């Protein structure tokens, strides 16, 4: 479905000199810096797959998506979506893809949302009956009815994101590109959006590429992930493996209400682990435990904790993508 080979994109950045004198100098000579946003990226994605495309800030995720959607023309390399080269045949490509950029809406700012859908119906040439069933389906999964009459500019971030997702799906696209579709959303809306994405993927066999900084999204949605770092692909494969291999540090944060002073010394977990694999920290009445979940299970830690203190509040954090990449470097898998 999606076929990417040796894709590279370079940006030219013109540097400005500071001050008035510098800007005068800039008329005659400009410093150009070439910035390689992505370098030799290759992958294949099959029909119906849902792939997480992840990497740190500035890794080149959005750049890749922009090439696949036809916004950017690559410096070199090939890219085909459903047999079409997006940047050469933009409108043909646009007809069968759906795109959401979480950072920026693609809707008409001043028009009511309902009107937006009427316009999209015309743009994509959607037959009346298909449009109606589709609309019904989308307003149900994404709960659009409560704000469909309002102009887009008045929508909250969560409402706008749902509207954007609906607008990307109205024409039943074969491929869906989602660039940070859950950015800045609360748990409830995030959950709603994830459910919708999953449903679309299963029901219509829509191929989906998703970038995000929220590992939870990836875990709930994708079997396969592609990791890029500084513009280069560093991993492509199953998500479970990578978590097992590199994402083994779990953090537990617990707030307790014991009156007596708790100190590290009288907390003995009885695990024989060195500080690399188990690390305790106490701040006021909060205890932070970092541990290697390959060596000891979460449940064991919590069991011990309950014995020692009275817990008011408890959070469990998985490792973030940035740390996983760091661990990969540490393990020498990647050449830094």
């Amino acid at each position: 479905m999606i076929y990417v080979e040796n894709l590279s994109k370079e940006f030219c950045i013109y540097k400005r000199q500071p001050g008035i004198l510098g800007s005068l100098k800039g008329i005659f000579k400009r410093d150009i810096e070439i910035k390689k946003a992505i370098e030799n990226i290759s992958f294949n994605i099959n029909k119906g797959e849902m792939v997480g495309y992840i990497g740190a800030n500035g890794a080149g995720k959005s750049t890749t998506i922009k090439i696949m959607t036809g916004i950017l023309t690559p410096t070199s390399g090939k890219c085909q979506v459903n047999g079409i080269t997006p940047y050469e045949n933009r409108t043909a490509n646009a007809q069968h893809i759906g795109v959401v950029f979480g950072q920026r809406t693609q809707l008409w700012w001043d028009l009511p949302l309902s009107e937006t859908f009427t316009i999209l119906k015309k743009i994509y040439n959607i037959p009346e009956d298909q449009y109606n069933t589709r609309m019904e389906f989308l307003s149900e999964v994404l709960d659009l009815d409560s704000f469909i009459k309002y102009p887009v500019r008045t929508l909250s971030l969560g409402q706008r994101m749902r509207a954007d997702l609906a607008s990307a799906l109205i024409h039943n696209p074969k491929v869906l590109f989602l660039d940070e579709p859950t950015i800045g959303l609360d748990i409830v809306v995030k959950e709603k959006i994830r459910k919708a994405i999953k449903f679309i993927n299963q029901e219509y066999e829509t191929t989906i590429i998703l970038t995000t900084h929220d590992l939870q999204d990836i875990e709930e949605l994708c079997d396969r992930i592609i990791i890029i770092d500084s513009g280069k692909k560093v991993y492509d494969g199953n998500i479970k493996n990578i978590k097992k291999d590199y994402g083994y540090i779990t953090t537990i944060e617990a707030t307790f209400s014991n009156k007596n002073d708790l100190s590290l010394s009288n907390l003995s977990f009885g695990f024989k682990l060195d500080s690399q694999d188990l690390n305790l920290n106490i701040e006021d009445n909060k205890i932070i435990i970092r541990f290697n979940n390959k060596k000891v299970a979460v449940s064991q830690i919590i069991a011990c904790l309950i014995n020692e203190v009275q817990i008011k509040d408890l959070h469990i954090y998985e490792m973030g993508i940035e740390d996983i990449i760091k661990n990969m470097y540490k393990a020498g898998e990647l050449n830094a």
Partner: protein
Amino acid sequence: MLSLKRQCEIYFPFSKSVIQSNMTYKLNFVMSICGGLLKTAVMYYLWRAIYNSSSQTALNGFTLNDMVMYIIISFITSRLITNSIDFQIAEEVKQGSIAMNLIKPIDYHTKLFFEALGKLIQELIFFAIPTIAFLIMIVHTTAGNQQISLSNIFLYFVSAFLSFCILFLINISFGLIAFYTINIWGLTYIKFAITRFLSGELIPIIFFPLWVQTILKFMPFTSLNYSPVMICLGKIDLKQSISLLLLQIGWIVFLFILSRWIWNKAIKRLTILGG
């Protein structure tokens, strides 16, 4: 009351930052001058054709040479005095950031004034002074019958500065209308059209019918452009020049009080509406 020097120390950075940010986009500055020059060129050719079509060498006391000088100085003056403070205020009102300016321990009017001053200084250094110097050179080498005396030039700059203050105060009052309508664009366009015509930027006021000239005596428009330009060209004697300058100062006092009054009303509205 802070001393003037201290005030300048506080507010001058606003001027400086305006100059700096404008100069980062120096191409824009150059282009906008070129655009203005083109419009001036159209006027030049038009006047040339007008004088060619006329049997007289002077119309209302202006020869073609006088008229060419008139439109050039007029163009320089309008560049010197224009500022977009009205848009700036309107933009801040629209985005609600105007309230932020009221919290800060600086006077909003003064800050805006110094920002406009920054643009004035930039226009002076990079456009007006070089252009006028060039003009003087040309006039002297071609040895036409008309001379631009240095004392006139000096009085011109004084008068242009007063014009700048007048337009600044008008613009402040206009910008505050943004509290009442969203199409400030249309309004400023009306203001632009009216001031351009009635200030004598397009055509010397003396070409107007007498009754219009009489009405204009009671309005600030001629103080914006006609006065400084006539002073510069030496079309009026020293005594008249001084009285024009005094008239300009009178308008400044009046408009200052008016703008403060509008400002106070607008602020009340702001605090009631809650930004």
